[in-house]
């Protein structure tokens, strides 16, 4: 079992290597965490996820941009690959679930992929439907997996018109599901007029918005 001092050092190492997008270093520290007997859940949440939280803040403050975020995400996933097999079944509660997808007619998925990283890092179970997702599929998948939140992304003024239709099919299927939307042509007013429960201006804000929506539910 790692000493408190060693544990703090490993968690900081995981945090820093994600923030500095050092993929190999992240794997190295994650392996060290396993070797030292650190609880994998703690290493993920206290190290990798904290790192992505910092990355999200840097993105919102325009200190990091898409290239940096993508590389931080690579480091995060490399660390998760090492640590996830060591998770104990009882070490964490049932995760929150979110479905993500770029709406029908649109293949611009950079924003959605960054949002996925943030939810992965925050410990959510993410069901990523990809891009150009047919309207009905969101409700079908939500019924199957019971996700509490559905996140919809659109980058085009034409594809954004699919959003109110998707929200209607979701509400018809499960009135409790919360819908978060984002993408360049959207704003909070349009999101509200489409019947969405929340709007995220960027990937760094998405998890916080989703948590707020669930608290208001």
């Amino acid at each position, binding site marked *: 079992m790692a000493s408190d001092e060693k544990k703090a050092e490993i968690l900081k190492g995981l945090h820093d290597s994600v923030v500095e997008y050092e993929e190999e270093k992240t794997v190295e520290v994650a392996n060290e965490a396993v070797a030292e007997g650190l609880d994998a859940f703690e290493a993920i949440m206290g190290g990798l996820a904290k790192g992505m939280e910092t990355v999200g803040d840097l993105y919102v403050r*325009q200190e990091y941009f898409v*290239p940096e975020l993508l*590389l931080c995400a690579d480091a995060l996933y490399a660390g998760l690959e090492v640590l996830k097999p060591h998770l104990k079944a009882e070490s964490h509660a049932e995760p929150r679930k979110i479905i993500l997808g770029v709406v029908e*007619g649109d293949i611009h998925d*950079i924003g959605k992929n960054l949002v996925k990283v943030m939810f992965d890092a925050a410990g959510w179970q993410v069901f990523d439907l990809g891009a150009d997702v047919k309207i009905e599929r969101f409700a079908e998948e939500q019924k199957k997996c019971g996700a509490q939140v559905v996140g919809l992304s659109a980058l*085009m003024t*034409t594809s*954004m018109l699919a959003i109110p239709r998707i929200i209607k099919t979701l509400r018809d299927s499960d009135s409790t599901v919360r819908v978060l939307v984002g993408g*360049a042509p959207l704003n909070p007013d349009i999101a509200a*007029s489409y019947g969405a429960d929340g709007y995220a201006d960027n990937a760094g804000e998405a998890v916080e918005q989703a948590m707020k929506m669930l608290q208001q539910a």
Partner: protein
Amino acid sequence: MGIGNDRVSMLLKGERVDMVPVFPLGIRAFAALGVGYTMGEAYSDGEKSCRAELWAQEQYGFDGFPNFAYGPFGAWEFGGEIKFPEGEFQQAPMAVRYPVISEEDVWTLRVPDDISTAGAIPIGMAHSLTAAAAGATVMTPNAGVFTTAGNLCSVQKLARWMIKKPSLAHRMLELSRDFLIGMVQLWVDTFGKDILMYNAEPSAANQVISARHFEEFVLPYSIEVHSAALRMGIKHIMTHICGDQNLNLDHWTKIPMGDPGLLTFGHEVDLHTAIEKLGESSVIMGNVEPSLIQNGHPNDLYDACRAAIKAGKGAPRGFVLMSGCGFPPKTPPYNFFTMVKAARELGKL
């Protein structure tokens, strides 16, 4: 052939205009739907798409000139694959296969031997020939060097390489630069030097990259492409500074645009700032939010046009009322009329 006689062209020639012109950026999908063509034909048939734009111009009475550009330009031209829009929600071509998949591909990819037959170039050429025959100003397809480079390998790959393997990113940009210079030369050879070069850089927005990366990966190559076009005798370059580029504006001042250039801005950039930084050398155009044009109440849209006209009217080289990005194809016709009406009522000079 040459520069036309609409109000935007008059501003290029330094002539006085009677009112703020309206020039909806990238209107051909809206125009195509308005005359009964499909969204796909707006991109796959150069002659039809240009005719639709000219008819829309006649119908609504706006200024400016036809424009053939689309997001994933470069992918098909270098041997990848695109899909033209179809269905209810698509509005532009999509890249379905990039020419560069692996790092090895970067070093084997070559600029097409015959640019005139590459990808959508024949479609763009048919579009320009139709414009020229109608006496409209001719403009090249999009020569945005960074955005085109992203379309060769995907923006996500280019973004990673910019930090981890910059030599690969620079190679993508060199290929993009050489192709675009060749394309502009083809247009000059066909139509003469009295045409406009068009450049749009959505992938260079600060929603994607930093000003530091703009300086390293966008600025030098843009200077090279723009300088080459000006050396060919082109006098004006129209550049769509797409999205939030507030952090990049100082770099844009270093890129030659001709005399004057035409600079169009997204709604994310304040027009006063744009005029202050770039208005001495270029006509400023913008920047009504596309979502408002498509979804807004006409009264709200009229107010937004009022604000844009008020901010832009005094620009030293002139101001043009324009959508902040590609004109939304599903815009209610009355909303577009509202923009024209606002310019007529509020933009008298």
